[in-house]
């Protein structure tokens, strides 16, 4: 056997499949763009409404609702995850019940229930603090925030629980050995490490939440889809306005995805790549 080949120049393998796939994909995209460009849709109208005041208000409301509902969701999620893992059987049961109810019913239904709560409780009274008609309190904003946030908490609690379980038991013991309380151990040692596992699915759920806010249009909350619908009810430019909404959802979700990368890097400190 000759050893002359050991140092011959090397030629990498050719990936013909990739070229074929690229050509097919580009062709398909061109076909789609051409058909839409020649279809019954007026692109100038899309451009005109892209920055209409009602649409922009809708975009802001969508972002505000997604962020607030997510904050409520994560706060409840952490709380109920810790309760679920407590040694106290009562808190464990409460947490299980919460997850069962809010994960077991459609979110649109939950929004309707909150929005119509006044039918059950006409007045909302905490003696000495609040005394009001429930109709006045339960605005579309409040109903949407409660509906989306509380339901999100039920999902997030399972994600957080998984994250906490992923942290080695030795970490808790080491924290206790330096005299930390359960609360300190959870906050300083366990949760920061659990975050690395929790964040990717939470980022995912945040992105879902942006789109879930569109459900709130059903209870008159002025998010971007609701604004688009209001406009096309008046001018009949249905597809044009749906494209406007599509554009804004993609923008918001893209920005969030970039933010997710930054945050994930922050919480992977000390992890060997």
């Amino acid at each position: 056997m000759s050893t002359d080949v050991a140092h011959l120049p090397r030629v990498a393998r050719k990936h013909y499949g990739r070229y074929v796939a690229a050509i097919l994909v580009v062709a398909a995209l061109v076909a789609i763009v051409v058909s839409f460009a020649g279809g019954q849709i007026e692109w100038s109208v899309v451009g005109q409404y892209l920055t209409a005041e009602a649409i922009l208000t809708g975009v802001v409301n969508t972002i505000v609702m997604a962020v607030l509902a997510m904050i409520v969701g994560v706060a409840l999620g952490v709380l109920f995850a810790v309760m679920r893992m407590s040694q106290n059987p009562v808190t464990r049961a409460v947490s299980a019940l919460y997850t069962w109810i809010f994960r077991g019913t459609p979110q649109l239904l939950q929004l309707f229930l909150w929005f119509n709560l006044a039918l059950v409780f006409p007045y909302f009274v905490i003696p000495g603090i609040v005394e009001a008609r429930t109709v006045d309190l339960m605005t579309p904003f409040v109903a949407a925030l409660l509906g989306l946030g509380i339901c999100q908490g039920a999902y997030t609690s399972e994600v957080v629980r998984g994250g906490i379980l992923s942290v080695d038991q030795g970490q808790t013991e080491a924290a206790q050995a330096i005299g930390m309380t359960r609360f300190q151990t959870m906050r300083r040692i366990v949760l920061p490490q659990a975050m690395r596992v929790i964040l990717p699915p939470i980022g995912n759920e945040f992105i879902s939440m942006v789109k879930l806010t569109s459900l709130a249009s059903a209870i008159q909350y002025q998010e971007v889809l609701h604004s688009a619908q209001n406009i096309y009810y008046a001018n009949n430019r249905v597809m044009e306005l749906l494209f406007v909404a599509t554009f804004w959802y993609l923008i918001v979700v893209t920005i969030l995805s970039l933010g997710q990368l930054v945050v994930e890097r922050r919480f992977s400190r000390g992890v060997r790549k």
Partner: protein
Amino acid sequence: MIKAVDVHKRFGAHHVLKGISLEVAAGEVLCVIGPSGSGKSTFLRCVNQLETIDEGAAWVDGELLGWTERDGKLHQLSDAQIARQRRPIGMVFQRFNLFPHMTALENVVEGPIRVLRESRDTARTRALELLERVGLKDKAGAYPSTLSGGQQQRVAIARALAMRPRLMLFDEPTSALDPELVGEVLAVMRDLAASGMTMVVVTHELGFAKEVANQVVFMDDGRVIETGSPDQVLVNPTHERTKTFLSAVL
């Protein structure tokens, strides 16, 4: 410093500790040896209340661990009281258990700042002294994942010392180390013993036990089989089981 009387521990039907009684005087180094599964580590964990004592009692510095006597009964302490009892007891684990999301320095200052409520500056200055003492001052900013096992264990010792403990517990501190790294950790422990620290060391390092211990306890099957000076237990054991164990490991 430590007094244990007839300590029992069960995990379900599994009876791990079957009545451990021993005493450790202040400034003394006790080495606990014995085969795996003999309950050595469990006993150590009972002293730091990572496990509750089912029967019997143990005292550290005259304070009954985990329980308080009232109306002729023992009442279990709250988590906060147990956390307080743990404070003067430092513990070093087989698998180091450094906090991976914190640098070496952050690991060491965490307890002093959060538990002892020391100022950041005081804690930092002292932490750097301790890291220097274990030979790792230049690694203060390093994350545990970038340190060798021996270095991690030395940071863990510094972390325990930062709580100004009166008693140090070592749970097989060199068992997870590559052989060439064992020496650096034992050197730190030897130095600590020479400084007068009271120590309980669960170990397989019989050479270390022979050299440093004031008292050696041989445990098997949840019981103390033999106890005495290193010479008595390691060189001239009287019990058959001790002899069998020593001949197997030496």
